[in-house]
């Protein structure tokens, strides 16, 4: 009888723990979704560090990012190279030095997917992309961490996983880690983040 009671108590505790965890994850998703929905514009500086496993070396790049809901993104590197990726609706501008190339994402399934995933990752909407990622969420005192495991074959060939670090106070992406299949890692840290400040429309011009 005592044994049965003990088993019952352990079972109840386990069930309560699981459901508490489930509620907590749901709450995290809710906060992140609410923050993403309320984000009309976002701009920030970023530092990108590429860790090269084969050479035991790293390379640091710096740039600026601009986002406007729902389909405008400018990702621009300022050092040590000048390179800009501008997404505006269905068109992408890739600007490198004197060379500018405009691509219609509707004509390229690959570019369309890349553009969509980039946009969703930056604002945190990738958590709801069940078609693209299996998501594991956790939290600490200062941040929420979402580990995204690619589900589509093309992405699986490139990435082992993508880790998004959310600032707990603002529920916004503060750091992105791209872990590649062979072990190379790219870390992008966002700083001087400004949310819902006006952005000049010229920033998203695709000529």
């Amino acid at each position, binding site marked *: 009888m005592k044994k049965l009671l003990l088993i019952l108590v352990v079972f109840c505790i386990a069930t309560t723990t699981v459901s508490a965890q489930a509620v907590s994850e749901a709450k995290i998703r809710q906060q992140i979704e609410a923050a993403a929905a309320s984000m009309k514009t976002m701009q920030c500086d970023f530092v990108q560090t590429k860790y*090269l496993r084969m*050479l035991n*070396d790293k390379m640091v790049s710096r740039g600026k990012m601009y986002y406007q809901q729902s389909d405008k993104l400018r990702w621009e590197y300022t050092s040590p190279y000048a390179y800009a990726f501008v997404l505006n609706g269905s068109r992408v501008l890739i600007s*490198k030095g004197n060379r500018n190339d405009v691509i219609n994402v509707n004509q390229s399934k690959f570019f369309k997917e890349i553009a969509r995933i980039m946009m969703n990752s930056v604002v945190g909407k990738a958590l709801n992309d069940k078609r693209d990622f299996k998501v594991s969420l956790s939290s600490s005192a200062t941040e929420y961490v979402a580990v995204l495991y690619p589900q589509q074959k093309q992405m699986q060939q490139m990435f082992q996983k993508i880790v998004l670090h959310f600032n707990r106070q603002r529920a916004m992406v503060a750091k992105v880690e791209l872990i*590649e299949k062979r072990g*190379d890692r790219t870390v992008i840290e966002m700083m001087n983040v400004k949310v819902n400040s006006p952005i000049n429309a010229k920033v998203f011009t695709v000529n």
Partner: protein
Amino acid sequence: MRKYLLLISILLLSLASLTVQAQDSLTVQQSPLSDSIGCKTRYATTIELSKGYLSGITIMVREADVYHGVLFNEFGITALEFTYQPRRRRLS
């Protein structure tokens, strides 16, 4: 991927004995890669293809008998890793 390796082979073999044209049309043989072991060199890289181009950064490191290199795009995504053996003129 094989196409890229072939293009990289051609690029590296041509880099190994780079010819520089000076203003007075003199031709100078210049090796772009230092002989010092541990020396690191970084290149802006563009590979032109018929339907577009691949651009990024190549970092090469000189070791005892080989050069190790990685080509990755501006977003930091690795396109390929390679090892070049100058004595055997072999790329892998």
